[in-house]
């Protein structure tokens, strides 16, 4: 089987992290975002993956070559010279996707969930029509495009209602699909939207079904959602009883704590809930961490207090510093001792020596 991952552009919404690494390589739950997807696809029997990108960072090729070897799969780049929307990239990658007659997966690189590719393929095969969209239940459907089914049919889609005023349903497009190769005949090589053009046409022909996603789902394309998505992912690991999580240590507080084995934790810390600590991170004594992500090689000095914050690679947080309210530190940022940062987005290689009292971008 084959898959296409829509990566797109530079991931500007996830800056300042994406000033250093392309978004698919940013670690989510101590694992690069793209690796979560590649693992799940490979496990479902996918052998060929196309990354639809509109730039080609060398750093990505290096990592992907590694994954090709690791999983015994082929990964190719499909590079748009002009933006082709969400459907155009499929046409551009037609050669790979039409390699054989099996259906192919399409997924948005920003989405995190418990990827259900195997069940999705089985469901798709069972209904026999051209396409299946993964849908997820949301609390406030009025903010999204909602899916409405045919009367008396559990999965065949009747229509899409964009930002419904009145309740028509609570299932939305989760940004993951499985499509027959025949769908490629419906797409022209031009900037075109799969949601606005391809899917409505398939719906008119009664060829599109929905598949309910179990568990969590989040678009983690921006820092606030990246943190929320991390909480959901960690809760999911807890629910599964994952061995990845750290338990039984005196400093663990409230659970959902993922600590890389190479990280060092000082004495009298209180860590959790919902904390991810990357490789070679050093956490000093008396540190309080909650709802935060410490990326590789970062350092948190004694008595610091961190909440709702992403600490970038190689960054240092000073003693008695306090970071909160979706603060994001880019690569190699230094926060001075006793400094307070409230919702600061700090670009790489900056040193912060005065309080950031209100949310601000520190260039």
């Amino acid at each position, binding site marked *: 089987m084959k898959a296409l991952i829509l990566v797109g552009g530079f991931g500007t919404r996830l800056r300042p992290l994406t000033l250093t690494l392309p978004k698919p390589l940013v670690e989510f739950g101590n694992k690069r975002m793209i690796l979560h997807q590649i693992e799940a696809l490979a496990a479902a029997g996918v052998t060929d993956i196309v990354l639809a990108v509109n730039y080609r960072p060398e750093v990505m090729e290096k990592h992907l070559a590694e994954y090709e070897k690791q999983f015994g799969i082929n990964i190719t780049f499909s590079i748009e010279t002009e933006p082709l929307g969400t459907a155009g990239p499929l046409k551009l990658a037609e050669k790979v996707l039409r390699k054989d007659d099996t259906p192919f997966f399409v997924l948005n690189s920003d989405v995190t969930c418990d990827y259900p590719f195997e069940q999705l393929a089985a469901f798709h095969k069972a209904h026999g029509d051209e396409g299946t969209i993964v849908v997820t239940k949301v609390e406030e459907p009025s903010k999204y495009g909602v899916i409405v089914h045919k009367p008396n049919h559990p999965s065949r889609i009747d229509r899409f209602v964009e930002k419904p005023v009145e309740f028509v349903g609570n299932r939305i497009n989760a940004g993951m699909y499985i499509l027959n190769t025949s769908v490629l005949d419906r797409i022209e090589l031009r900037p075109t939207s799969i949601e606005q053009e391809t899917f409505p046409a398939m719906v008119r022909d009664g060829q599109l079904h929905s598949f309910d996603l179990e568990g969590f789902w989040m678009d983690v394309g921006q820092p606030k959602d990246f943190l929320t998505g991390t909480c959901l992912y960690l809760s999911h690991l807890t629910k599964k009883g994952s061995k990845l999580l750290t338990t039984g240590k005196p400093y663990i507080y409230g659970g959902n704590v993922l600590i890389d084995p190479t990280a060092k934790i000082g004495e009298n810390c*209180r860590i959790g809930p919902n904390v991810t600590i990357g490789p070679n991170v050093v956490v000093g004594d008396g540190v309080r961490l909650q709802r935060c992500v410490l990326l590789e090689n970062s350092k948190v000095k004694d*008595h610091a207090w961190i909440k709702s914050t992403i600490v970038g690679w190689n960054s240092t947080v000073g003693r008695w510093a*306090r970071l909160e309210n979706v603060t994001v530190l880019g690569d190699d940022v230094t926060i001075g001792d*006793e400094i307070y940062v409230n919702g600061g987005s700090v670009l790489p290689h900056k040193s912060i020596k005065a309080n950031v*009292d209100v949310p601000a971008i520190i260039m």
Partner: protein
Amino acid sequence: MSLQIPHRGKTNGVSPSTKAVILVGGSSRGTRFRPLSLDVPKPLFDVAGHPIIWHCLTAIDKVPTIQDVYVIGYYEESVFRDFIKDASTEFPNLSIKYLREYQALGTAGGLYHFRDAILKGSPQHIFVLNSDVCCSFPLNEMLKMFREKDAEAVILGTRVSEEAASNFGCIVSDPHTRRVLHYVEKPESYISNLINCGVYLFSSDALFPSIRSAMKRRADRPARLYSYPSSDNLENSFIQTNDDDESRSNDGVIRLEQDILSDMADNKTFFVYETKDFWRQIKTAGSAVPANALYLQKAWQNNSEELAKPSANIIPPVFIHPTAHVDPTAKLGPNVSIGPRATVGAGVRIKESIVLEDAEIKHDACVLYSIIGWNSRVGAWARVEGTPVPVTSHQTSIIKNGVKVQAITILGKECGVGDEVRVQNCVCLPFKELKRDVANEVIM
């Protein structure tokens, strides 16, 4: 070998006798020092480990010719009883008495009211110190100038920024002779950046007659036109007079600053001693933090034995009361005072702050530019924070997002800050529990 007895006026007829008066005001006047003055009268508030007024006495004690010290104010007698008892033991060479005004008489009015007590023993000179200033009180230097110039009055002056000057009494002096040529209290326009420090030395022969003539002038003049009207501030002076109508119509209220000094500049041999050392007013509660810092720095320069020994976790100057308990992993300083029986937990950081009696700071908390009130508790990983004000500034408020807020965070008596809670630029009245983050507020 005979013992050298310090020369005191009483025991040595050669040395002219000097007396000192400390003006302490009263509780109804200490409102700007709230919320701290709700529980302790401002003169008795501890900075650098001692009551504000104690720092005045220390300076007075260094003048060999002073024996009698009068504390004049309109607090009840009981307020100063314990302090005077303790101070009498600590300063055995001084005789300290509290003289209570039963009504506010003004700074000069109070002096005049108690003239018989003050003039008893015919002192030649009288020092008058306002208790709400923090400075090095160079009294001996003032006395030296007084004698050299054969003066009738010497005022302590200091230079401030031009912008700040109009908040104080401004002095124009002859740059060579240092004689005071002109004195204006809080002028509308810029007059001089040499300001009145609230510390004076008068000859007895000049002071009381001056007050008497001011009282006479007052009686002769219609109350409403008391001020110094000039063509461009007529309207303003009228309003001011109107505002103060009640006190103005009261014959007893005579203030040194408004009513005496200007007149002395015209009629007396009046000089200014300009100090280059530190000087601050202690008006608002927040001003206790810079005052604490300045007195601690002074104690540090004088190698005071009272201060905590510097170490990796003690950045001098730091005062820790002998009965306080500070965990060795806590990092303190600079400019920190820890009061009696206060406890400071492991991994705590305290900088530029005053922690008062019986307060508790739990582990890993951070206290910066703040005052932690008596018996108050700061939770683990909490952050209580004010904002530093420039050393040259005489303000204790700052503008944040267009709103004036207190620079120093103050917790009144028995307040509580929950674990991990952040309190920034707040003033918290006594007995409040802060369970959520707060910033830029007064918490009633």
